[in-house]
């Protein structure tokens, strides 16, 4: 599904290398987790993959189902099936949440040569998905993320994911700012989407989210490189011993 090869990335504005040769293959139907200490390059990886400005790829590349991801515009990556659940979802006052969802869905459908979804079908789809995430009609009526609490913003990210049905989902620290109940809601939302055709890359600082979204593979990202990979147990090891031991071990 997602293949990252020897990816080197630096900040465009300054001569500072952030990713220094990331190799990662995420197969369809699997959940991979990336853990790592602050400043290891976790968020940079998610932004580079989704096409945010400000980063420069100096070496290596990334493909989504064989397509060169890095040559595409952000909207083309979305239409190709990539989705980033933002660590800090953006508030857009004046753009209604429903308008935003419908515009996004129809833009992607159009890019894929599909017809626009009818208003009735769209409403039905959103209501059903929103209900599972305990997002009420009031929230849907408001401007995108406008006045939402941290938890509401994260649930709204998962709602977008559920409506857009991407193939490759990247969750960037989706657990940050969530209480236990909200985390469970979010995890349930993610788990409901797990299937053979879809893959997840869950970026997190802490292990606790991975109790609810159990990964197939866990990677430790440190100093811009994946230094260790293992099963779900690896996350537990981090939780118990911190990153220091692992970093010492691979040094």
């Amino acid at each position: 599904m997602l293949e990252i090869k020897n990816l080197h990335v630096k900040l465009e504005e300054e001569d500072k290398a952030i990713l220094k040769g990331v190799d990662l293959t995420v197969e369809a139907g699997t959940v991979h987790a990336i853990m790592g200490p602050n400043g290891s390059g976790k968020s940079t990886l998610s932004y580079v993959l989704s096409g945010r400005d400000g980063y420069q790829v100096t070496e290596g590349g990334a493909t989504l189902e064989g397509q060169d991801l890095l040559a595409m515009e952000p909207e083309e990556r979305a239409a190709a099936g990539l989705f980033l659940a933002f660590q800090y979802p953006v508030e857009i006052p004046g753009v209604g949440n429903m308008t935003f969802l419908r515009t996004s869905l129809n833009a992607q459908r159009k890019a894929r040569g599909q017809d626009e979804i009818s208003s009735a079908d769209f409403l039905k789809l959103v209501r059903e998905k929103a209900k599972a995430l305990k997002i009420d009609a009031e929230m849907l009526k408001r401007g995108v993320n406008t006045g939402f609490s941290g938890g509401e913003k994260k649930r709204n990210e998962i709602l977008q994911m559920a409506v857009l049905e991407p193939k490759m989902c990247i969750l960037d620290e989706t657990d940050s700012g969530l209480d236990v109940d909200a985390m469970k809601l979010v995890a349930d939302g993610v788990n409901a989407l797990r299937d053979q055709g879809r893959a997840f890359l869950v970026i997190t600082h802490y292990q606790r989210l991975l109790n609810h979204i159990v990964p197939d593979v866990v990677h430790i990202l440190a100093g811009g490189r994946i230094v260790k990979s293992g099963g779900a147990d690896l996350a537990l090891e981090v939780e118990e011993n911190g990153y220091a031991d692992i970093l010492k071990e691979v040094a």
Partner: protein
Amino acid sequence: MMALAEQRKLDALDERLAALGRPPSGGCLGPAREAALARLRAMGLPGRRDEYWKFTRPDTLNAPEAQEAAVFVASETQLFGEIDRVKLVFVDGVFDAEASDDPVLGGVTIERLEEVATRDIHWAKDLYGVLEARGQDPVARPLAALNTAYARDGVAIHVTGKAEKPIALIYWHRNTRSDAVLHNVVRLDPGAELTLLENGPAAARFNKVLEVDVGAGAAFHHVRAQGRDHERRAATHIFARVDEGAVFKTFTLTANGVLTRNECVVEIVGDNAVAHVAGACVGDGDFHHDDTVFITHDALSCESRQVFKKVLRNGATGVFQGKILVKPGAQKTDGYQISQSLLLDGDSQFLAKPELEIYADDVACSHGSTSGAIDEDALFYLRARGVPRAEATDLLTLAFLAEAIEEIENPALRADIHGRLEGWLARRRKTG
């Protein structure tokens, strides 16, 4: 030297007035026209050195002839087309009875100004040029005085009850050199209600005055859209007097036009009254749009709002001069003023001069003015969800204008204006 400059100014005025041709003398509006002409002669035409015209060059508005303006053929359906209304049509500033509805509406008397002017006695003489004259202090508005002195036509609307439906003034532009001068007066009796709609480019050059007297407890709603003809020019004035417990709300949508100067002068004279003045404009290229607003609070516990939003690109210019004057004793005034521009490139500019002048000590007045580019974070967020850049930019543009459009109280009119903007943006996106 000074005398020479003075003489030039007078010559320019004479030239300008000679090209206009005076309306017939006498009748109930005769004295108001004479007085306006005297005012105008004392003031002279607006000059580039006038502080009030610092950001907008009045030359083409002063010139004896209107500059040529091509007629824009719109493919879209008529604005307010779905709204049940009484239509009154002016073509290049001349009333077109054929294209208009019968001026019959419950709770309202509608008359042509040209006809009113021939009478000896008419209520309009107590309003025509009266609010305009009051509005000349403390800032001169020569083009409004010119209008009062020279306008031959327009409408006189007397609202005695709750108008059954809106009155729509439609201004068509057919002649590429037309120079139109129209003057409308509206009087709302205590407790009366009216929605007045205006749309269309009107002429190559348009000078229009609207005087509105809103009686105690009355409500006046005004929604206007200025035509899309790229080369048109307009100088418009609204003068309103708002009495106790009355509501006055005006909204203007402007797209295109090389030069538009919209002045709105509101005097709140009765307690607990409300006055809202709002505008949204979308300028592209050779576009200069000036909103000049002056709201005077001269009563207790009144609320005023000024909400202006401008989207500018390809070298367009936006101007906002807005003032709130709170007179001594106008306690508990709640005044709000916001003017913002969204600059879609580095060539466009926004010039703002917000002013507060307060002579009462128990008031709440706030104002803000900002100028900024598209929010890159919001743009990326939309694109990351699959919305292409141009469409995402339009979505954010509409969101930016939303606060001004929200000022339109009637949902159907609000939806019409919103839909119109959405359509314009979408069509421009397709045509590049």
